[in-house]
């Protein structure tokens, strides 16, 4: 598996898209840190961009990569190598490359500006989102042999998690505001990794004014430390379930 991972990383890191992605993140975060003096505000602005961009790039790039490397996968499958290792090698290679791009593009400015723990959490959460959405990308890809359909599914997933979900939660809050909604909303947040990532970073920032409804709820129910741990655990679950599901499909798949 490590050997496959090595070759996938080698292949991905040479593509122009990943270089552009790294540069974009670097310019964005160093620009924001440079213009703002209040690092808390910077982290919040950065957070909003990261929560949109990282899932989008991970899921789209992941799907495209899966379909483009289909022949390479076939080549590997004809070798004496276990299928699970091929799948995990491809997944790890791609997600590690994307995580590396994030680390170089955003981690470096964060370290240089020395803007505190919340910014580091933002990087960590961004990396977790990278792994989660690459797993979702692989899940969307293994379920369909048609490239257009796979990418379409991936985009829909992103749209749902990054945009639509908030709207749904807001309308629930709006229509049912006569009822005690705290626990249902807490549960709803767990259904969206992007929301969990937001909650984690905002809890770390400890600026409740910016936390939004769900963030405040997490703090109220679990306190900052517990809230972060539980949200992290849920994020790991969001990584484990789609990845295992996709791996299971891949193992039985005709190629």
């Amino acid at each position, binding site marked *: 598996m490590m050997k496959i991972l090595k070759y996938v990383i080698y292949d991905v890191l040479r593509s122009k898209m990943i270089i552009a992605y790294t540069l974009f993140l670097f310019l964005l975060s160093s620009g924001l840190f440079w213009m703002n003096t209040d690092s808390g505000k910077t982290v919040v602005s950065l957070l909003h961009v990261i929560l949109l961009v990282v899932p989008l790039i991970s899921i789209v790039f992941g799907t495209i990569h899966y379909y483009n490397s289909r*022949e390479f996968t076939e080549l590997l499958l004809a070798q*004496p190598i276990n299928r699970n290792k091929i799948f995990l090698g491809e997944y790890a290679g791609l997600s590690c490359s994307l995580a590396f791009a994030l680390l170089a593009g955003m981690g470096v400015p964060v370290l240089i500006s020395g803007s505190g723990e919340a910014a580091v959490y933002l990087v960590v959460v961004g990396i977790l989102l990278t792994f989660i959405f690459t797993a979702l990308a692989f899940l969307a890809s293994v379920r369909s042999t048609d490239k257009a359909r796979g990418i379409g599914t991936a985009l829909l997933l992103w749209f749902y998690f990054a945009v639509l979900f908030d709207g749904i939660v807001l309308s629930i809050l709006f229509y049912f505001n006569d009822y005690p909604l705290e626990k249902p909303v807490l549960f709803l947040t767990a259904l969206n990794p992007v929301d969990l990532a937001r909650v984690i970073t905002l809890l770390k920032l400890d600026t409740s004014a910016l936390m939004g409804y769900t963030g405040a709820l997490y703090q109220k129910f679990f306190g900052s430390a517990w809230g972060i741990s539980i949200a992290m655990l849920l994020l790991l679950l969001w990584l484990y379930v789609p990845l295992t599901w996709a791996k299971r499909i891949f193992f039985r798949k005709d190629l």
Partner: protein
Amino acid sequence: MIRIEGLDKSFGKLAVLKNINLSFERGQIISLIGPNGSGKTTLIKCILGLVMPDHGKIFFGDKNILGSWDYRSQIGYMPQIGRYPEQMQIQQIFSMMRDLRSTHHDVDEELIHSFQLPGIFKKRMGTLSGGTRQKVSASLSFLFNPDMMILDEPTAGLDPLSAEILKNKILKEKANNKLTLITSHNMSEVEELADRIIFIVDGDVKFFKTVGELKSETGENKLGKALAKITGS
């Protein structure tokens, strides 16, 4: 060496392979022929474990191949269209495959040299023509001295000279007691190489005969005519 028992496969409602029973031994060159979409490539992919059969078993030696992968170290596979990571150089592809197979025994680089690939070792895979890719695929399938070669339309994109090189190599490996399974639409090529022929139509094996049997049954000297006669009737 390979035994296929009661193999069924369908994609959705379409039955691609119907109750296939075959067995191949070492030292044979077996040609798999049939119209487009008759299930040739699917059968090959079943042997390679790329496609999972619905029913039936495939044995490599004595072992059922289902869920196993180590038997593939004994198979060299040349796909119909071999595509590789575009950014990699030819040389890197070869060293990668060696690295991935972590082979201990000697490698067979004969084809690499007779195709004169070392001269273009630094070229990236993405810049190669279809024929050159075929050469890379062919060289790879023989590289690890496998006991069995599976070649899916190996000469389709090759120039006549290179096709000749490949055919000579196939015959040479036969003399080394290797098994070769080959698909082709070129009858004169099949006649030159194969000693047994599987004719498959709509996932059904119509016959599995030696070339000699075919010719004597039909009274024709040319394989193409013999086939036309036997399938026309």
